[in-house]
Every structure is written in structure tokens, then in C-alpha cells.
């Protein structure tokens, strides 16, 4: 398993956010995390990525538990995971190519990474190949700020590819995008999982996207997992449980969407 997580627990200021989360993501699989706001899905991803420190639990990459590693080895193991953010987090003033090259920084000597003019030619070529894989090779020398939101998120995916990650963690990758761009990015993530064998885990706010694109969906409610099922087996009842507190506004909504899917 590229990524497996056991007994992940986390609390902030005495409030328990994760009450023991267990899951794994296989190579070639796109797994969606669903849940209401505050259910702990983003915290799960941030703990796995090492942005937030979990209170307890074990995170393994290709069978190696991260908590047994230290210093350089830990850093190298972490670099096999790449993160995609809701707010994209590219540098708008730099070109798409330069932003993608930044994914390779851990392999570039510091002096050669001080300016885009000094970047090794092979890294630049690899970055261009990554942009080609997300369908944006023709925009390589455009400033990222001039691209649309959906194109920017695809550049961010290319940056993750240029990091040579086997595991891609996406924290609400499409929440800031219009519906059409969201479909494109989800299709891209699914394609990367299926055709390139990446293990992709994505936190999603839209159950219909999860059901249509993810191979498997995991439901989180108040920091605990309520289901971990192939997306085809998920019913309106499953989703109702997740979004129960909002039921008076959204339950018809959710079941409608589920039927549509």
C-alpha cells in the first residue's frame, strides 16, 4: 500500500477532532473523503502530510512507518507525497513552467534554485513534460496569474507530478472552481490514478463528484469514520448521516444529487 493510516487521533485545545481514523489508499486508486464542515477530513490530510502533528496514530508509506524515521529519511519519505490545496498556492507572477519546476526543488542544489535562469535544463524539461500530462504544455511560459482557476489547479497538479510523488493528497481541490473546471480537475485526478498508478486521496465537499469520480469514498462524522465503501455502493442514507445536522436545508438536495449520479 502506498499509504496506510492507523488510529489517527488529534485534538485542538481539548476538542477532539479525530477519534481514531484508519484507512489506506492503493496505487491506481482515487479515494474521496466526505463529511460536513468540522468533521475532520482536512485535518486528516494535514496530519498525513505533516503540516499538523497528530496526537497518536501511525502513517505508513509503502509499508514504512513515518514515526520510525527521523531527519533526512523522514523528509525523503514525506516527499513521496504531494499536496494540492484548495487555494492552489502557486506564485501568480511566475510562469507555469517555473511554478512546476518548484515541485522539484528538493532535488535541486540550493544555488541553482535561486533564479529560474539557473534551473538545470533536465528539470525544466521534466516540468514541461508534467505540464503536458495535465494538458497545459502550450501555456508553459504564461504567467500563472493569467490562467483560469481550473488551469491554475492543473498547474498545481503538474507541480505535484514534478515532485515525483506516488501519493497525491488533495484538500478540497475543486471547492474554489466553477463546475466545469471542477469536472476537469476531478477527471485529471482520476486519470492520474488509473493510468499512472498514483494513489490519490481527495477531500471533497460535493458528494456527487465523489460518487462519479472516486473509486472509493470515506465518510467522516465528528472525527470518526462512518463508512469506507466503493463509491458505487454509497446510498442517499449514507450521505444523510454525514450531513445530518444540516438536514432541514439540504437533505432533499443530497438525495436528488445522489439519484442524478
Amino acid at each position, binding site marked *: 500500500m502506498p499509504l496506510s493510516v492507523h488510529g489517527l487521533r488529534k485534538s485542538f485545545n481539548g476538542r477532539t477532532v479525530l477519534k481514531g481514523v484508519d484507512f489506506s489508499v492503493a496505487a491506481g486508486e482515487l479515494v474521496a473523503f466526505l463529511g460536513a464542515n468540522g468533521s475532520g477530513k482536512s485535518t486528516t490530510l494535514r496530519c498525513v*502530510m*505533516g*503540516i499538523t502533528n497528530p496526537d497518536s496514530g501511525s502513517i505508513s508509506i509503502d509499508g514504512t512507518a513515518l514515526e520510525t524515521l527521523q531527519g533526512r529519511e523522514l*523528509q*525523503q519519505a*514525506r*516527499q513521496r507525497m*504531494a*499536496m494540492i*490545496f484548495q*487555494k*492552489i*498556492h*502557486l*506564485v*501568480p*507572477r*511566475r510562469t507555469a513552467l*517555473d511554478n512546476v519546476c*518548484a*515541485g522539484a*526543488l*528538493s532535488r*535541486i542544489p*540550493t544555488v541553482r*534554485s*535561486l*533564479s529560474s535562469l539557473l534551473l538545470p535544463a533536465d528539470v525544466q524539461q521534466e516540468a514541461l513534460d508534467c505540464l503536458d500530462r495535465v494538458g497545459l504544455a502550450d501555456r508553459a511560459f504564461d504567467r500563472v496569474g493569467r490562467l483560469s482557476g481550473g488551469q491554475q489547479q492543473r498547474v*498545481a497538479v503538474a*507541480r505535484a507530478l514534478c*515532485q515525483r510523488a506516488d501519493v497525491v493528497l488533495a484538500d478540497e481541490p475543486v471547492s474554489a472552481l466553477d463546475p466545469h473546471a471542477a469536472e476537469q480537475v476531478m477527471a485529471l485526478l482520476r486519470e492520474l490514478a488509473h493510468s499512472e498508478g498514483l494513489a490519490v486521496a481527495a477531500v471533497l465537499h460535493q458528494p456527487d463528484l465523489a460518487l462519479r469520480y472516486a473509486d472509493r469514498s470515506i465518510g467522516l462524522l465528528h472525527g470518526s469514520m462512518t463508512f469506507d465503501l466503493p463509491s458505487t455502493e454509497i446510498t442517499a442514507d449514507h450521505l444523510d448521516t454525514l450531513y445530518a445536522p444540516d438536514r432541514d436545508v439540504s437533505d432533499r438536495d443530497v438525495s436528488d444529487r445522489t439519484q442524478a449520479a
Partner: protein
Amino acid sequence: MTPHTLTPAVARRDSTSESRVALVRPKKPLRWITTAAVAAAVVGLHAVAIEGTDFKPGLLVDGWKGMAAFIGDAFPPDLSWEKTLRPGLEATLVTLWIGLLGTTLSVPSALLLAALAANNTSPHRLVYQAARAILSFFRAVPDIVFALIFVTAVGLGPFAGVLALICHNTGVMGKLWAESMEEIDAGPQEALRTAGANRIQQVANATLPMVVPQFVGLLLYRFDVNVRSSLVLGLVGAGGIGLLINQSIKSFQFDSMLTHILIVLVLIIVVDQFSAWIRRRLAA
């Protein structure tokens, strides 16, 4: 005014007045006391300040004749080419060069100290505090004091002025840059950290590229300020048009003084227009 004439912030489903939400602002009983206290404090401070600065408008009214005589002596400005205009223009160029070198040559030191003094790029809390302290020192010592110090080492002349501006501008620009770095979105830097980039790589590839427009804007602003500072530096012997203004006052040639001041006016307008033009291009 009756409540019916007010529009509630919340839209209602039906418009009959019975179903409306009553608009009642929460009362804050202590608010007017706070307002009154602040107003009293401001008035009190001004009273003390007027006393402390001998601020007496009456003196200005009584002494207007002295001022009129002084200004009268200055008119018409002396426009003779050899005696006033040519030396004035040459000295103005020196002033401009002092301002230019004082700004550009302080860029490396200001950049380094800014990176160390911004909490999102500084490598360690102690380094951060030390860099802040150094910047505060360079900012606290006025450029004119730096000029006097450097004059004792390199003698009277523009070189002392350039050195003085480099020191003072390092302090001011370093602080302004550090603050603009702290204000930018931390997201891209965090993204590169999760990708395994080291601290220097994060700063060079995310933080600095993000702040380029703010940095250039502040640099132009400081160029504008430094050209004006270098005028004052001329008064203490650091060369340039300031020196000529000082000399013409001391030799009672007020008509030459006026010519020099008019040249300075043109210089300031040109510099201001130039930096406004660059900033407009950057924003576009």
C-alpha cells in the same frame, strides 16, 4: 421616525408590518464615555504641544515685514547662465546621483536584513530580533548624522552623502520590505515546504517573487525621498544643490537661492512623475 420607515437588514418573506423583525440596535452604554475621554485626551495633548512649541500665530502676523523683505530680495530670480544656472544644474545632477546611489547601493543590505527580519522568512527567533535591532539602529540615526560621521572619514563631498544615505536607507527600506513580506499570502511558501524545499529555496521561489511589485514600489518611493534627503545633506557639506543653496544664503545672494530652489522644484516633480509612471506600469 417610526420603525416602519426603516428597512430591516434581513429580507422578509411577506411584507405585512406585523411579521417584520423589529430593528433594535443593541445599546452600548459606555460608548459615549469612551468617545468623550478620547476627545478630551486629544484636545489636552494639543494644548500641551502648543505650549511646548511656542506656537503663537500673533508673532507671524507682527513679523510679516521681515518675511516680505526676505522674499522681496529673492525676486527676480538670478537667471544668469554662468553665475547661477549652470552651477545649479550641475549640482542638481550631483544631488540626483547621490539619491540614486544611496538607494540602489542599499538594496543588497536592505534585502538581506529584510529577509532576516520578516517572521515568515527569518531562520530563527534570535536572528529575527537581531536583524530588527540593526534595522532600528540604522533608522533611528538620521542621515544627516551619518553624513557628519562620514565627512570626518572621507572629507566633504558627495561621497559622504552617498554613504550616509546607504546607511539610513538600509534601515528604512529593510523595515518596509520586511513588513511587506510579512503581509503576503503564506500559502505558496507552505506549498513548497511540503514539497521538500529548504528555507532559502522557499524564500527565493515563493516569497520573493510574490513581493516584487511591492518591493519595487517601495524602492521608487525611497528614491524619491532620498533625492530630497540628499538636498539637506548638501547643507552639511555633502555636495550637490543643497550646498549651493546654503552658500547663496550665507552670502546674501537670495536671488541665486531662489533660482536653485526653482531648479529643485523641477527636479522633485520630474522624479515624482517618473516613479509614478513606473508604478503605473507595474500595476498594469
